[in-house]
């Protein structure tokens, strides 16, 4: 798990955190005030998360079916504006992450921000890094602030799986392009005559990774097998995710979700993929990728999801100057062990874990890897294991398996959730980690802002 982008940000920021938490976090929580060492470094700019929102995450092909990606992104941006009362010209830069690009809106950040009424003077760009695309959008923003270029950044992510670009075959495209250039009727007729049945077979967006020709589900199944993760463990984890998500939803903890009036349809206010089931029902499903002996099923994988997210990131001074009450400090880096080492923290210091659950098998394998001395020594060049996160701190409000996983939008959800959980549970440090296609990963330490 490494992350390629050489973001050379300085060490975390810190300050004592916490506040006690009154409410009914159904799941205990360390509510007592803690006072841990500070990670703040003199002369280093503190960067804070002011607010984070997302549209409800919906199973693709449901209520969002007739929209386009920038519609969802726009909804998230408007939600953010609404929630923060941010002046539309107070933003220095807008960055969006997405994976499958709608060709008509390839810079979806620009289309969404103009649509949301942001000034056309605010530059906006789109980034892509598989499932951690919005993480990169955020870290790019953090980089711009650290470098002193910007003070206020809106970062977000969007994914729209209800409609994906399906192309003509390469041969057909070639013929059609040549037709454009054909000058005489004869040339045109001969080109049309060259079209064969095979040319009409459409090309679907790649489900397999280009470099390995392996699909994610297949890879997850192999990963689970490599770490000896059983079908039972995966199903249990998936059930846990759905159960916790349901509890969080019912308790009103998912406060980052904004409601969205879908044109021509109803207003949606809730994620619709949360379906707590029973172990018996989960056990009935057949493996989805490796047949017949695989362990990854439709139920223990994240489902195809539509959704968008957005966060407001600012330098601490700017946020305070504008009268905001930041939610947390951000600190991106390169994978869980590294980020901890750099922050001088151990697993025990972390109060809130939010890990991306692409597949139950994948997340279980990651947890086993973190808990294995052999893996740490053989593949990470460490003397000993990092240790697995405590499950009572782990993804307590559900995760990608249950809430849904709009590829490009998940990163912001994770970060916002950590901030909200820190507030709710009274913790000091949160850790976000996510994996992505291409053998990449991303991790970030988030520190509660003193309330």
């Amino acid at each position, binding site marked *: 798990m490494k992350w390629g982008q050489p973001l050379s940000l300085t060490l975390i920021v810190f300050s004592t955190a916490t506040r006690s938490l009154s409410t009914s976090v159904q799941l205990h929580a360390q509510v007592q005030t803690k006072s841990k060492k500070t990670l703040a470094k003199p002369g280093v700019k503190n960067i804070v998360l002011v607010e984070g929102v997302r549209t409800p995450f919906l199973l693709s092909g449901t209520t969002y079916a007739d929209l386009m990606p920038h519609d969802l992104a726009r909804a998230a941006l408007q939600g953010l504006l609404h929630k923060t009362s941010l002046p539309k010209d107070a933003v220095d830069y807008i960055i969006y992450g997405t994976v499958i690009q709608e060709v008509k809106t390839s810079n979806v950040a620009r289309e969404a921000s103009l649509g949301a009424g942001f000034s056309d003077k605010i530059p906006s760009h789109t980034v892509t890094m598989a499932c951690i695309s919005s993480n990169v959008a955020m870290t790019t923003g953090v980089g711009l602030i650290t470098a002193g270029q910007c003070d206020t950044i809106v970062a977000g992510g969007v994914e729209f799986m209800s409609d994906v670009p399906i192309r003509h075959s390469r041969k057909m495209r070639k013929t059609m392009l040549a037709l454009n250039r054909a000058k005489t009727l004869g040339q045109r007729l001969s080109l049309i005559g060259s079209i064969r049945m095979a040319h009409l077979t459409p090309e679907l967006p790649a489900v397999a990774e*280009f*470099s*390995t*020709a392996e699909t994610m589900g*297949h890879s997850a*199944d*192999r*990963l689970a*097998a*490599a*770490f*000896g993760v059983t079908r039972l463990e995966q199903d249990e984890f998936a059930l846990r995710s759905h159960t916790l998500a349901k509890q969080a939803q019912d308790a009103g903890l998912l406060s980052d979700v904004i409601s969205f009036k879908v044109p021509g349809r109803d207003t949606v206010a809730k994620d619709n993929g949360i379906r707590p089931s029973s172990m018996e029902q989960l056990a009935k499903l057949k493996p989805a990728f*490796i047949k*017949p*002996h695989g362990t990854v099923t439709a139920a223990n994988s994240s489902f195809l999801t539509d959704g968008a997210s957005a966060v407001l990131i600012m330098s601490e001074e700017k946020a305070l100057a504008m009268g905001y009450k930041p939610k947390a400090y951000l600190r991106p880096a390169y994978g869980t062990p590294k980020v901890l080492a750099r922050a001088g923290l151990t697993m025990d210091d972390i109060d809130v874990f939010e890990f991306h659950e692409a597949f139950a098998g994948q997340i279980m*394998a990651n947890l*086993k*890897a973190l808990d*294995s001395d*052999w*893996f740490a020594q*053989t*593949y990470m060049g460490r003397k000993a294991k990092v240790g697995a996160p405590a499950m009572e701190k782990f993804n307590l409000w559900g995760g990608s398996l249950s809430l849904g996983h709009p590829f490009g939008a998940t990163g912001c959800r994770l970060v916002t959730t950590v901030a909200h959980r820190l507030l709710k549970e009274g913790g000091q440090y949160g850790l976000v980690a996510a994996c992505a296609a291409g053998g990449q990963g991303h991790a970030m330490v988030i520190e509660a802002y003193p309330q």
Partner: protein
Amino acid sequence: MAGVRALGALSRITARRYVLSGISCRTFSVALAMSARTHVNYEVKEDVAVIRMNDPNSKVNTLSVRMQNEMIEVFDEVLANDAVQSAVLISSKPGCFIAGADINMIQACNTSEEVTKLSQEGQKMFERIEKSPKPIVAAINGSCLGGGLEFAIACQYRVATKSKKTVLGTPEVMLGLLPGAGGTQRLPKMVGIPGAFDMMLTGRNIKADKAKKMGLVHQLVDPLGPGLKSPEERTIEYLEEVAIQCARGIVHKKISLTKKKGMMQKVQDYVMGIAFVRQQIYKNVNGKVMKMSKGLYPAPLKIIESVKTGLEQGPDSGYLAEAQNFGKLAMTSESHALIGLYHGQVACKKNRFGVPERPVKNLAILGAGLMGAGIAQVTVDKGIHTVLKDTTVEGLSRGQQQVYKGLNDKIKKKAITSFERDSTLSSLTGQLDYSGFEKADMVIEAVFEDINIKHRVIKEVEAVIPPHCIFATNTSALPIKDIAAASMRPEKVIGMHYFSPVDKMQLLEIITTDKTSKDTTASAVAVGLKQGKVIIVVGDGPGFYTTRCLAPMLAEAVRVLQEGVNPKKLDALTTGFGFPVGAATLADEVGIDVAAHVAEDLGKAFGSRFGGGNVDVLKTMVERGFKGRKSGKGCYVYTPGLKSKDVNPDIDDLLEKFKLTPNPSVSSDSDVQYRLVSRFVNEAVMCLQEGILNGPVEGDIGAVFGLGFPPCLGGPFRFVDTFGADKLVEKMRRYEEVYGNHFTPCQLLLDHAKDSNKRFHK
């Protein structure tokens, strides 16, 4: 350009692993002694016995006597254990299930009856496996060949990993044998008659996914990546887990052993049920085999016969025919020759010069022609950073395109992915200058074969390379010491003679001079082995070993043409003797200009002995633009896109001018063949006599893999042993009377002729 193209049929001979089938129970009584088992053990996991094979003394599992005896013991125990309902058969070795039976077991037999008995014992054992009341699942990871495959197909169910190392096949035919432990009887039932013939007659390796499609294995398992254990270890464990599930599934009737037949399958079965259709298939296959083998290889015919007997006369006759044919084949000279080549090839895949002081990580190649680009292609995918340098953009682009195309063709064969092609090509740098040569560990020059150009290049290169860098020269005839004369450090100069096309031809002839250091040689051999080559290391001299053997044969071929034999007939005579490529075609492939060049150079070096045909024939051809395949015309006319070729119509007039009158006493078809071959063989023996060759093994390997000497004869030295040196000398004396010293046998050959106990191969 160096180059002798001897083509595809040869690569068929590359039995790479231990092969063979056949199980022996001869030492049964001895091994039953209650010693602890070392090769086979088993563990009962609830109701499934997991039988694990691991030969502690070898990298691969072979069906050795010991392995078989322990296997029978374990099998008996498993059958007797009431708690066990099924079994899984698996190897503990990563990369090898069973690579076959030990060839030595067959070579130790003196009569065909003994070998037949070996085969029958094997048949019996596998029959027990096949009829086992408790289902046995073969869990295959790595090579499953020969007897290993026969073992696997006797089991009730097969699960295989999709690892690149997993290959299934029956390579016996490449050793002149047949699958002798039930393979000829079981395979047709399992994969159909055409599929079975294809497997057994070509001996080719079948990858896991193809095996699944053919019906050879039932289920595939993905190899695993890093986890809580090493990928290899965990993959075997995973395979075992899946195989255990399968074994239980069979016992609990969740997995059916009779697979549902599709419509195509039903139709095929119906068609194959018609006796007339089967007869047509036998006839057809027989015809193809005869056409390809010219009847020189008995094994394919015996395979067809064994399959036919089983299908037409029932299993009893079939198994008997298989065992008897196996016995007969094991005693043929063809099988001995092919097994000899197999052993020789194994020997020539080792570096007898030790480990070089520093590994070659950066290699630079001068000249992006056919040879240079070919060398780049076989180097760049081996993790060596490769620089390809030429003097012109056009030449460089052509060379880079050749490398690209070579790799791209591998994608079409599904050997690599497009991603692997791209990342491999990123290790190749094309350039026109000497930048970066200061990092080169070895430079291989493949520039035009002209001593002056070579001298200029060596001086230029030595000015820019680091002191440890080796300078290898790719030439087919120029003596290395002449080239090294321009060097400031001759101990770092060595010859590396590649054969064209480099990516297809397996041989590499490495030439050392008196001054070449041992470390330089070790390094060159190490690079060659990395490139996947079979290597012979020979002494320096005009034409070294291979070109020197070929030259007199080509001189004779020119004479034969002058005597009025047309190129087609000449080709038919040579291929009829077992050469995969006819002499006229070979000359076209090498290039008539190269042949003329070599003939002239070696003629000067060796004098009248290298005479025969008139060199002016070749020179005139070159003048008229008939340079061989590369120029579109040579002995034949080559039309791009056409496989068939016609004799160049202008060649008749040309030959008319140089016409010689044949002497009827030495011009029969057979005499023409022996005139060609005896000059080749005599020169090879002389190379051994003069110490150019290290030994007869390298001589045989060089001739077969580099020049296409008939594999069924096993190389010139084995040919002398089998044919008889005395008989060969007798023929040569007869030709000598007509043509003089071209046919004078060398002293070593005469020694062997005098004393029939003297043999090149023991």
